[in-house]
């Protein structure tokens, strides 16, 4: 059978660190970084006799996440212990949720080439993060850092509804943007605030049963998730085509070699011996509590996207792009308050700003300038004070230093020359120096005009108004 006869089935368990100030069961700071074992106390170090106390903010944030992803909220929830031994797990159990997750039965909508698609969310539960092991590079052993132990997490478990790496990326980006909008996480993937366990299986198209799945744990960049899924699906298809069976197992994705590896040593079927956490009381939330949180939710990307298309006449593509990140969306809304030109603002974000961020390997949240700067830049373009070529240069400058664009063009001397006399002077000079071009033009070679305009732009270092230049050259040449 051919590759096209197979369908890839992917389900995700996304872990998202919540941005509460303190940990889930003690009052230690959740701040990332810090010298090893400086953000801990007897509780998160699991000293004998200590007890957890649930941080109420964690419940609030998780309910927010649930409501923003169309979940139902469990009013009689509870915490459970998941028992396993590992040095980064100081109590030898993780306090998580087993059979009564706080949120269940939700969905998010993603945009695919074939239009909108709903990805179902099975559940969202709260749990604590583990610590970190630092392995000594000289092989002298491993060191446990418990700064991260007890940082609150939500785990978002999707149904196996995704059919391509691209859909997975859209889904992850969607979750990321929702969680940014509702301000429950900084979603910094490079710091591990957002990471995913990816379950992949393949089956013949039209089959009703799922194939055997493999799991790749702790993936924390979009790029590796996409590569890993593509590799793993291909590997599974090859195995099946070769007549082999897929083993259900946990795999490790290696970004350098671009391959997955079996982690067989961890494969003895783990029995986590879940049972209700006796140190915590039942987790009950009232209708009123849920409604208050629902009312406090900001406008979510889905609604913004529709509004941008209707109210601001953005293209579908631009609206998707701008609402894909809370930071783009805020920049967009602030800018149009200043310049009242949604189309140009949307295009600048989608093309130039996204390109420069990409070149700098930065994310939208790293943007330093805001709506007052971008808004003024668009006004300067609209008034013809600068050309779009100069506008790009101003944007580059804004990434280096936040200043008002009018100030930048003044300092750099980038104001567009629209003075008829000054432009005429340049045109005459260029014509004088390039008699051959005049001859060529008269002989019907239109390219000569482009050459002359180019020379004039060069002479004015890009500041001349291109429309005026064009017109004046034509006038002179046709005399």
């Amino acid at each position: 059978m051919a590759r096209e006869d197979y369908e890839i089935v992917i389900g995700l368990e996304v872990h998202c660190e919540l941005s509460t100030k303190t940990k889930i069961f003690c009052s230690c700071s959740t701040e990332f970084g810090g010298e090893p074992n400086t953000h801990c106390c007897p509780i998160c170090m699991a000293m004998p006799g200590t007890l957890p106390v649930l941080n109420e903010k964690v419940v609030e944030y998780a309910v927010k996440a649930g409501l923003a992803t169309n979940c139902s909220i469990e009013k009689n929830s509870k915490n459970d212990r998941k028992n396993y031994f590992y040095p980064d797990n100081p109590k030898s159990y993780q306090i998580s949720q087993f059979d009564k997750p706080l949120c269940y039965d939700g969905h998010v909508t993603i945009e695919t080439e074939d239009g909108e698609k709903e990805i179902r969310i099975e559940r969202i539960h709260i749990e604590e993060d583990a610590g970190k092991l630092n392995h000594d590079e000289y092989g002298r052993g491993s060191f446990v850092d418990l700064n991260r132990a007890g940082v609150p997490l939500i785990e978002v478990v999707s149904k196996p509804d995704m059919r391509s790496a691209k859909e997975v990326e859209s889904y992850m980006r969607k979750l990321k943007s929702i969680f940014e909008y509702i301000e429950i996480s900084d979603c910094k993937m490079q710091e591990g605030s957002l990471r995913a366990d990816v379950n992949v299986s393949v089956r013949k198209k039209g089959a009703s049963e799922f194939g055997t799945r493999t799991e790749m744990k702790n993936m924390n960049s979009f790029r590796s998730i996409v590569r890993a899924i593509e590799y793993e699906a291909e590997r599974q298809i090859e195995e099946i085509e070769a007549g082999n069976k897929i083993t259900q197992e946990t795999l490790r994705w290696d970004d350098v070699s671009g391959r997955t590896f079996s982690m067989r040593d961890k494969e003895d079927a783990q029995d986590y011996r879940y049972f209700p956490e006796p140190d915590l009381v039942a987790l009950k939330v009232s209708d009123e509590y849920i409604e208050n949180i629902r009312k406090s939710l900001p406008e979510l990307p889905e609604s913004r996207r529709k509004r941008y298309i209707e109210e601001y006449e953005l293209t579908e593509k631009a609206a998707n792009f701008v609402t894909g990140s809370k930071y783009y969306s805020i920049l967009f809304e602030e800018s149009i308050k200043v310049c009242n030109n949604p189309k140009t603002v949307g295009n600048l974000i989608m093309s130039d700003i996204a390109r420069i961020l990409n070149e700098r390997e930065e994310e939208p949240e790293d943007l330093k300038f805001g709506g007052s700067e971008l808004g003024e830049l668009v006004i300067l373009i609209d008034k013809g004070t600068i050309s779009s070529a100069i506008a790009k240069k101003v944007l580059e400058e804004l990434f280096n230093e936040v200043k008002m664009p009018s100030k930048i063009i003044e300092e750099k001397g980038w104001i567009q020359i629209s003075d008829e006399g000054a432009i005429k002077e340049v045109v005459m000079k260029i014509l004088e120096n390039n008699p051959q071009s005049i001859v060529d033009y008269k002989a019907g070679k239109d390219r000569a005009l482009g050459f002359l305009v180019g020379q004039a732009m060069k002479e004015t270092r890009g500041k001349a108004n291109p429309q005026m230049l064009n017109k004046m050259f034509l006038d002179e040449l046709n005399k």
Partner: protein
Amino acid sequence: MELYEYTVHELVEMLEKGQTTSEEITKSYFDRIKEIDPKVKAYVSTLEDEAIAKAKKVDEDRKAGKPVSKFAGIPIGIKDNMCITGTKTTCSSKMLENFVAPYDATVIEKLNKEDLVYLGKLNMDEFAMGSSTEHSAFFPTKNPWDLDRVPGGSSGGSAAAVAADIAPWTLGSDTGGSIRQPASLCGVVGLKPTYGLVSRYGLVAFASSLDQIGPLTKDVTDAAMLLNLIAGHDEKDSTSIDLGEKDYTKALVNDVKGMRIGIPKEYLGEGINEEVKQAILDVAKKYEEMGAIVEDCSFEVGQYATSVYYIIADAEASSNLGRFDGIRYGYRSEKYDNLKDIYKNSRSEGFGPEVKRRIMIGTYVLSSGYYDAYYKKAQKVRTVIKNAYDELFGKYDLLLTPTSPTTAFKMGEKSNNPLEMYLADICTVPVNIGGVPAINVPCSLDSQGMPIGFQLIGKSFDEETILRAAYSYEQNTNFRQNKPTFKGGNS
């Protein structure tokens, strides 16, 4: 009369009147400890230098007329599973032999506020698992009434210390009878408060849904006073309940007229020693004479409590004791080449046989495929037992039972037979399953001269009725004229 013979409420009065000092009291105890403890072996560690320094400081403050707590300078002994900053908290286990607590348990914070003086840490069955204190990894504690017999357990050190006058009062912990049963075997008062009344923060967990800290004292008045000091809501323990301020000494009223006391017939039948049974009937008669209404009743589901207990307690213990893994603190085996060996060897060498047995039972009952048949079913039966208590307390103010089916047994008699040892708790275990409060009050001696105690069980958060009935009994009888003889100990 020596200072160490007085009750705490007597000592408090003497301190108030300036008849003695904290230093005198404290020194009197350490002299007594040096004389008696080599025989009884109640203490795992003593804190003499710190105690005497603290006592002197309190005396100076009192002399200078500074405001001091009524209990300032009163010594106390603490079971070695409660954390005191900077002191060893061993749980009588090799696993924690050198563990120095970096923080105070909430009960210790409360006692610190009152400026109590710590005599030392008391021996127990390892991680509070046992009924004889023979499961201490260090040494067994002896019963002061007969040194060849066990003091009961797991708070055997706490009970023996009070009986032997080597501590005026002590704190113990009770998961299935660990305060009341040793109190009974040693002839002292022992109170297990309602689950949630005393904070568990800083008590090294055995079974989280059952553990409670409580007082062991020479008399009921002292028990009410010590309960006043340790009870109350603690935001560090989510399972602790906020009842507002309470003064339990107000319950110390010598009057039980009209009080309804039920005697569940199941606890006067098979498996209960005849002398114990007779003693309980005598107590019932005494209560009737004092004006209480005593009736026979039935608590049939109680027979399942021991099974429920050994499933739930061991399940929780298997998880609670996971943290003793040789990684961050506690015992680490020297024999390892890899992570798995650190775990396996540290835990194999660091835990004693009873603890390992409980961890294995607990792991088993939580395993997939067995969870529903054991743990889940046990939780259901637990609810049935709780409901049965509710029903009984609709009719009765208190239930009266023996605390222990027998008086103190010989050392070694049951230590190799876990099932027989587990039966030592049949009268006390249902109380923990129900979460209700209960007290042991000593009432008489058997033909061997060993103490017999009775248990009064009350409804949740009604410690007052228990204290009132116990106090009334005490006021109308005179068990305290009996003194331990420290006989035996030569075998």
